[in-house]
């Protein structure tokens, strides 16, 4: 069936057993995002240690796509530098919005490549991006609350995401 392209085993696993779930202290930035069309909600907290994302914690309620995306987000950005985390954010966003060129980069996106099928379902792109948009907001706030670290050449504000779905 066609929906196997959307409901990959990997996505269902992350939905049933989410990674990094539960809001934690400490954190410098926090964001709450809502998808007004379906009521899905996500809270994301970011704790920075210099230029490194020391913890990203999340909690929310919603469909398998949005909740699994939050779990994959945790895997992909936790412990990364801000620069690498934002690069992964851009790559994930481009992939689910159907802007990616060719095959998604499995080395970069790991389990996240399971979301490639979302691009075929325009109504669900927002679901997959909900935690990632919230993460970007939380990161901006965390950076604003933290002193800039040496070597942090990229800030969240300079990236462009959006215009999707």
């Amino acid at each position, binding site marked *: *069936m*066609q*929906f196997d392209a*959307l*409901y990959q085993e990997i996505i*269902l696993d992350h939905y049933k057993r989410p990674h990094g779930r539960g809001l934690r202290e400490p954190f410098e930035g926090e964001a709450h995002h809502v998808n007004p*069309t*379906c*009521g*899905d*909600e996500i809270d994301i907290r970011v704790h920075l240690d210099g230029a490194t994302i020391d913890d990203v914690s999340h909690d929310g*309620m*919603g*469909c*398998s*796509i949005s*909740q699994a995306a939050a779990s994959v987000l945790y895997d992909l950005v936790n412990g990364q530098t801000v620069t690498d985390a934002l690069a992964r954010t851009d790559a994930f966003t481009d992939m689910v919005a159907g802007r990616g060129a060719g095959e998604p980069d499995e080395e970069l996106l790991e389990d996240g490549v399971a979301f490639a099928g979302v691009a075929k*379902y325009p109504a*669900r792109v927002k*679901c997959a991006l909900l935690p990632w948009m919230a993460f970007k907001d939380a990161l901006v706030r965390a950076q604003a609350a933290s002193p800039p670290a040496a070597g942090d050449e990229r800030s969240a504000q300079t990236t462009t995401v959006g215009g999707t779905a």
Partner: protein
Amino acid sequence: MKTVTDAASTPSGSLASVAGPTLDVARVRADFPIFDRLINGRPLVYLDSANTSQKPRVVIDALREHYELHNANVARSVHTLGTEATAAYEGARAKVATFIGAAGPDEVVFAKNATEAINLVAYAFGNASAAPATNDERFVLRPGDEIVVSEMEHHSNIVPWQMLCERTGATFKWFGITDDGKLDLSHLDEVITERTKLVSIAYVSNTLGTINDPAPIIARARQVGALVMLDGSQAVPQMPVDVAALDLDFLAFTGHKMLGPTGIGVLWARSSLLAAMPPVLGGGSMIETVTMAKTTYALPPARFEAGTPPIAEAVALGTAIDYLTGLDMRAVAAHERALTTYALDALSTVEGLRVYGPTDPADRGGTMSFALDGVHPHDVGQILDEFGVEVRVGHHCARPVCARYGVAAMTRASFYVYTTTHEIDELVHGLEHVRKVFS
């Protein structure tokens, strides 16, 4: 899986009721071209009619014929086409009036949809409140006056009144919902008081399917001199509605949920009320005399129809009403009741499924919202779509209803004149598959 056990059921899936007129569903379906198409390789199972109904061939033809043969602007031309278009447009108004038991066509105002019809009344109140000296007291709101709705409403019967209350300082109040999905009228006299100017309630809930009894609300409103509006968006398509028998003041509904095209809705109001209501949109067609110093306004309904209206859409709504009248609205209501009974039974066989709203089919229309344990409605709807089963998921523009039951979203199946019991079986089959995917 639930199978057809009712002896009255036929292979085509139509249901006979115990008495009164019935629908020949197979013949009805043959009138709807969309049922020829496949969805993801499967026959279309359209269970989203509370969102918008499908259209019979005659309605689609009416739109095309208007543009091919009679197209001209209305109410301002002396030429043949203009006369024909005007006659067709006004003819549609007369059909609407007859269909809902109005005293006459002049009580029928065409709007874009039910949302616009409700907003029209809300803005008339607002305009009257801004100039109380020159307006009818019934429409004037002052701080402390009250507008009453219910927690069961579609957003279109909440937000315009909240906005009106913000503009005027009036108090926004509402009836709650009982656990079994009915209006909580236990504090009727405290909710509707001497300060209440308008009560606006859904006749049939778009989410819970509840058929509300307006009688006690209207009786209380009459005691305190408040006006009463019903949002008939879900009721007018599926059961006989008679504004005179109901003793109503306003009724709003929309064409696209009753086999008509999008872009055409109706505000019905008592002629004495329309006559006292200040205009809302200004422009062409709604005037009597315009000078640079002052404008006087046309009589209703023209006063409330500024600009060129949706002519073809109104004409095609008239055709939809002819079609429904041909089916007999008593037969339509009996069909909805039979499907609701069947669906309540069929859905009860799905493990982990909970239906919201009244459990007695007598209390509800053909709209059923439910939860499937552990599976989000978006996922339910997505997987059902792969089986060609089209349902609505989300908050159904009635977020307070979802909040009342502690959920962010629901899955909703809704039925209409072309729906068969076989399609409800397909829904159940699809839901069993959803459970497998998420087990």
